[in-house]
């Protein structure tokens, strides 16, 4: 019951947060000077065409009216129509979001699968040369901009060693995307690098902390082997901070996708957002921000819930 009430409270908070985000973004977008019409219609558009565009898009109405029109259509499940792409925003996001999710989820999964054992391995070898070496590599990977890393990957694994394509899969459907796994290697590797760097650090720190706990000493005193202790006790307890951080990492993954999609010619939602920002395509920008806000809020919510399940102390209010 307590978990259920907790969930209800968090969902209500999330709705308020998302509403505030839409107001903030709406106001910021409309504060930009000039409006989108001239930019979208181009230098050759006439004054009549600009006026017609503003009338069609309700941009000639006062800002609060525009916002409530937007909110009303939003409540009907309509995110509006893109000024530039000639499609409904919901359709555009529906087409692009799964592709971005493939990229971000694969990057996160690959990153975590590597980071978790790597972090534990480093903790076991604390302050040994391999620990220093991996730590150094982690810092390098973390501080390298995704764009630069992507270029290096293309240069090495496409231009010098022609092993993988420089383009991500070009199909529209997920089936077509997965039909070209070779195309996913470099973009996923670029996305996973920072996940490995960040989460291996968290895992290393958490493992070290747990290794010094009384229950580990007790287990050792009881004759348990190091491997068994790591597998049965330390692993689960060390995952707690990793799970918590994963939820907060959602916007970072979307941000990374924006760059990776550009570099690897992969038209997902990150690129949609970037193009919309360039062309002042308000409905698309608002739609993307809404989706990213929801993803972030849901991500943190899931992280909190999972943390309550993984770590009973959270439920009990001890931490």
């Amino acid at each position, binding site marked *: 019951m307590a978990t259920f009430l907790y969930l209800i409270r968090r969902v209500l908070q999330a709705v308020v947060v998302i509403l505030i985000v839409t107001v903030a973004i709406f106001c910021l977008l409309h504060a*930009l*000077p*000039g*409006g*989108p*019409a*001239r*930019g*979208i219609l*181009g*230098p*050759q558009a*006439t*004054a*009549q*065409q600009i006026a*017609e*565009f503003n009338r069609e898009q309700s941009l000639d109405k006062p800002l609060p009216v525009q916002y409530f029109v937007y909110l009303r259509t939003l409540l009907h499940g309509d995110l509006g129509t893109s000024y*530039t*792409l*000639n*499609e409904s925003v919901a359709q*555009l996001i529906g*087409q692009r979001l799964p592709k971005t999710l493939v990229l971000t989820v694969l990057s996160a999964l*690959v990153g975590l*699968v*590597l980071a978790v*054992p790597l972090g534990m*391995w480093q903790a076991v070898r604390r302050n040994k040369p391999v620990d220093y070496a991996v730590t150094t590599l982690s810092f390098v990977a973390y501080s390298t901009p995704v764009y630069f890393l992507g*270029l290096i990957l*293309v240069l090495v694994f*496409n*231009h010098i060693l*022609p*092993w*993988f*394509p*420089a*383009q991500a899969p*070009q199909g*529209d459907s997920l089936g077509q995307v997965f039909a070209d*796994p*070779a*195309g996913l*290697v470099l973009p996923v590797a670029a996305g996973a690098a920072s996940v490995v760097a960040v989460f291996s650090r968290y895992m290393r720190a958490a493992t070290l902390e747990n290794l010094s706990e009384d229950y580990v000493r007790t287990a050792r005193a009881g004759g348990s*082997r*190091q*491997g*068994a202790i*790591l*597998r049965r006790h330390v692993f689960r307890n060390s995952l707690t901070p990793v799970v918590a951080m994963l939820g907060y990492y959602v916007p970072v993954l979307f941000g990374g996708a924006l760059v990776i*999609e*550009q*570099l*690897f*010619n992969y*038209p997902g939602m990150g690129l949609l957002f970037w193009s919309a920002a*360039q*062309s*002042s395509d308000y409905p698309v920008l608002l739609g993307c921000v809404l989706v990213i806000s929801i993803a972030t809020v849901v991500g943190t919510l899931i992280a909190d819930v999972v943390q309550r399940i993984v770590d009973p102390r959270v439920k009990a209010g001890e931490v």
Partner: protein
Amino acid sequence: MSPARTTLVAGAVVTAGALLLAGCSGTGGTSSASPDSINYALPANFTPNWILPIGTAAHLNTNNSSISDSLWERLVAYDGSTGKVAWNKKASIATAADFASDGKSVKITLGDRTWSDGKPITSRDVEFWFNLIKANKEEWAGYNPGKAPDNWTSLKTVDDRHFTITFDKAYNSQWMLANELVDIHPLPQHAWDRTSATAAVSDADRTAAGAKQVWTYLNNAAKNISGYAKDSLWKTISGPYSVKSFSTSGKVVLAANTKYDGGEKPGIATVNLLPFTTADAEKNALRSGSVDYGYIEATDLDQKDRFTAQGYTVKPWSGWAITYMPYNFNNPSMGAVFKQLYARQAVQKSIDQDTLAKVIFNGTAVPGYGPIPQGQSSDFLSPTQKNNPYPFSTSAAKALLTSHGWTEQGGVMVCTGPGTGSEQCGAGVAKGTKFQMQVLSQSGSTVTDNMMSAIQSSLEKTGIKFTIKTAPVNSVLSQTPQCTAGQSICSWQLSFFGTAGSWYFPAFPTGDSLFQTKGGSNFGNYSNPDVDKLITASTTSTSAQAVQDYSAAVAKDLPVIWLPEPDYQISVVKDGLGGFAQDSLANFHPAQWKWTGQ
């Protein structure tokens, strides 16, 4: 190694191995390089999203038009495919346009052509287009008040293959053909003249209300991109290609129209138009050989040999365009200075276009000194413009300012002699005014950034302070509109949106939108009654001299800062692909492409 370690390390190794196995299936770079298909790279960050040859300005950009022209041929097609911008009769439905001796009407003869469903293309199909545009002109991308269709008073059908359009007054026939009649697309009336998908085909277009309904129906149907390849509406075509597939993410596949009976027979059966997120992504695809006709940026020209070694030819594609920086003559602080011709001359003389074209643009731009494109030879160009009335000289520029009441103080010219005398600063320029101006320039291009820095440096030598602010091109256009001095949006002083050329002309390069008083794209509110008269004369006079007079007057009056005109694109074309010249009107024509063997 302990079991725990083994487990941990194995996890990592298995993951990496799985990735490698999944990926190691080749680079996937598949150039078509076959006589049956071609891979053409669309401009970076462009997604085709419209095929209907009528629509709003937001839809009809040049690349969408190139696709729709491949499906529905124009009545009169102008292009630069022969190396010179001219009427390409092979790609046109009309075979002749006979103007009346008084210049007030034209009689058009249609070719003996059929739609892909076997029905003949007739005058009724032109009338259908005419009725739709007349009734929906405010929404039509090509509409400019006072121009077509306002200045077309009637369309009278003579018979199935002949009709006459009457104008409100006499016009220059070349201008009328190249800038107005060129917009007409005969449309399949027998298939499209309906008010909804379920309604029967009728003569609905013959009433204004019906024409509005048909327009709405067609435009709504065109919003369903995923229906382009399936919807029977788009199957009745007159052009050399049909849509085989049209992806919402941007990939378009065109297939040769086997029923095509026009003059421009397709040479390649399948045309793949490929979208790219960035120019870098496109360059990577070129390097891997998966693009047959692509492009590189000017800054990549040093890699030309690499592409040549890969079996490509680098071919600059010049545009029928001019590049410039408009002054805001209504700017509250600098408008009065910009209104002084001597001040504009001093600015123009401070810009070394030859060096900019050679060094900054790596030779991929041509200096421009006036309103007529100079990348191609044409009869429109006046000797005055051609010979550069204001050659680069910062000392001459400085002398111009000092002889008009300006004194250099701390490296910046300051007006110390206000007044309207011949040796004073000029009307409205207050004492103490500093000659300092800011440009809002298009971001995202190294070449443009470098050009702005070079201009800043040379203006500084004259004593003009020039600051640079950047924004994406759409923001530049939005933030530098026509305005009056009292408006807050009128704070802009100079605007630059010409990284790929500021203004692409139709075949006949008139300045009615750009430099005529209150012209739709006269962003800086330039106004000169003499120039207005010359512009009007250029569209109505039958003499070619009228355009040259306009060219000379505007080159001398400097309504904008003239800048080098960059190539539209630096194309990289697979060896063996030929049979065409790149169209300086910035359109592509797949039917003209041929694999000629290497």
